[in-house]
């Protein structure tokens, strides 16, 4: 049964140096507050997994938390590059960043396999590309019925998955709605999970398009209103597009970035 606790306590007990951590949320419900707490607690040598590293991992990479990134699309959506990610890959600042890259389809299916307790998932993907040559978690299997060669991707089972959701109840059951991305799979694939929520409610009222994660598959829940900003939580906030645009200038320069982080994240 999920423990309802504070964000600092949850991060301290669930996230350790060297862990494989997935902070998921596809544009919507990105768990920024939890990422900032991980930065403040000075976690190091993390392997960060996420389909779209987005500004959240740009910040964690620039802050020196990560030594490896598992991902499929590393840009600032609609804006441009993630400068801290590029600086780490191109120049090793603040430390070198190893990459394991996939397509979205591959990453999504890796979580599906993880959530299903299987060592791999099968898809028709990566055909003719160079991705397989640089990524060891892609291989092929032959269909025993048709002889077709299919793509296999290894399951992805994070040590900890962190997501942001709209609501939880007192038993730690969690509900999210709107664009729910790969969060169900990412939580079910993980050994431990932490959910930050906008609000604790007495009763989760069923809603259209909602995903409910029973408290017994969640390790810890922390109430953190606004914990997705500058991403958003449908029903609670809107995406701060201006911040995403502003991040381009903030993150372009190492000193500007570091000053911004010190002022706004601390740690």
């Amino acid at each position, binding site marked *: 049964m999920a423990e309802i606790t504070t964000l600092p306590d949850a991060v301290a007990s669930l996230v350790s140096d060297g862990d494989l951590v997935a902070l998921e949320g596809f544009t919507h419900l990105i768990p920024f507050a939890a990422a900032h707490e991980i930065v403040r607690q000075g976690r190091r040598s993390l392997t960060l997994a996420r389909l779209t590293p987005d500004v959240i991992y740009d910040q964690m990479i620039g802050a020196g938390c990560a030594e490896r990134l598992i991902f499929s*699309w590393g840009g600032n959506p609609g804006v441009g590059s*993630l400068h801290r990610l590029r600086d780490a890959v191109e120049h090793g600042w603040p430390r070198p960043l190893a990459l394991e890259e996939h*397509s979205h389809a591959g990453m999504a299916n890796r979580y599906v396999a993880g959530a299903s307790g299987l060592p791999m998932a099968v898809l028709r*993907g990566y055909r*003719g590309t160079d*991705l397989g040559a640089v990524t060891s978690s892609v291989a092929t299997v032959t269909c025993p019925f048709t002889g077709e060669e299919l793509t296999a991707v290894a399951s992805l089972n994070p040590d900890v998955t962190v997501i942001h959701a709209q609501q939880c109840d007192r038993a730690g059951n969690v509900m999210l709605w*709107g*664009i*729910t991305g790969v969060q169900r799979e990412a939580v079910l694939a993980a050994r431990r999970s932490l959910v930050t929520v906008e609000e604790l409610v007495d009763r989760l009222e069923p809603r259209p398009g909602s995903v409910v994660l029973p408290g017994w598959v969640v390790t810890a829940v922390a109430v953190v209103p606004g914990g997705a900003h500058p991403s958003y939580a449908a029903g609670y906030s809107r995406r701060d597009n201006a911040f995403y645009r502003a991040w381009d200038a903030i993150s372009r320069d190492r000193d500007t970035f570091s000053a911004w982080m010190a002022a706004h994240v601390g740690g």
Partner: protein
Amino acid sequence: MVASRQLADGDVCLVGIGLPSLAANLARRLHAPACVLIYESGTIGSKPAVPPLSIGDGELADTADTVVSVPEIFNYWLQAGRVDVGFLGAAQIDRHANLNTTVIGRYDAPEVRLPGAGGAPEIASSARRVVVVLRHSRRTFVEQVDFRTSVPGPGPTVVITDLGVLERSPDRGELELRAVHPGTSVDDVRAATGWELRVAGRVTTTAAPTGPELEALRALRAAMAP
């Protein structure tokens, strides 16, 4: 504008952010009101009033016929062959329409680290028709891409640039110049292409944007301004 004309009414279109989203939303306002927009974030049948900045903007979900998970979008909808048109961009393209969105330079010592694959490899291989939109220059139209991120499948592949329109011929599997925009010559396109460009027997000139097309474009752009 030329890209938006690639969409027929009723087409199911998988949309990325930026130019593709603009083109698809333009088409929906002009000649293809029944085209179905699918976004990678899981929204099916989105009808945004304003093309979104990101593919996960709330309006895409609020206006959708249904919202599904990301694994479902890729497995049940794209991979299953339910997408008619996939729009893609790229930093480099070669004569076979191989696309690079991963890296400029060597993979392990990149000059420029690009965003990576995203949904592109499977959009390229699974959509019935692939439309690539990019700027035409010798830096983008190269003899050999530094990294093959996406390889269009056997269906039609159309490349639309600021200079003209190329199509991959089914027989040769090589891009061929089919049309130039008004005021552009075939030699202009040759000069901006990093390989010996094949040119169709008859190169047409694309139609200039019509009044309603320009008006719709201006309205969308204005709505998108921050």
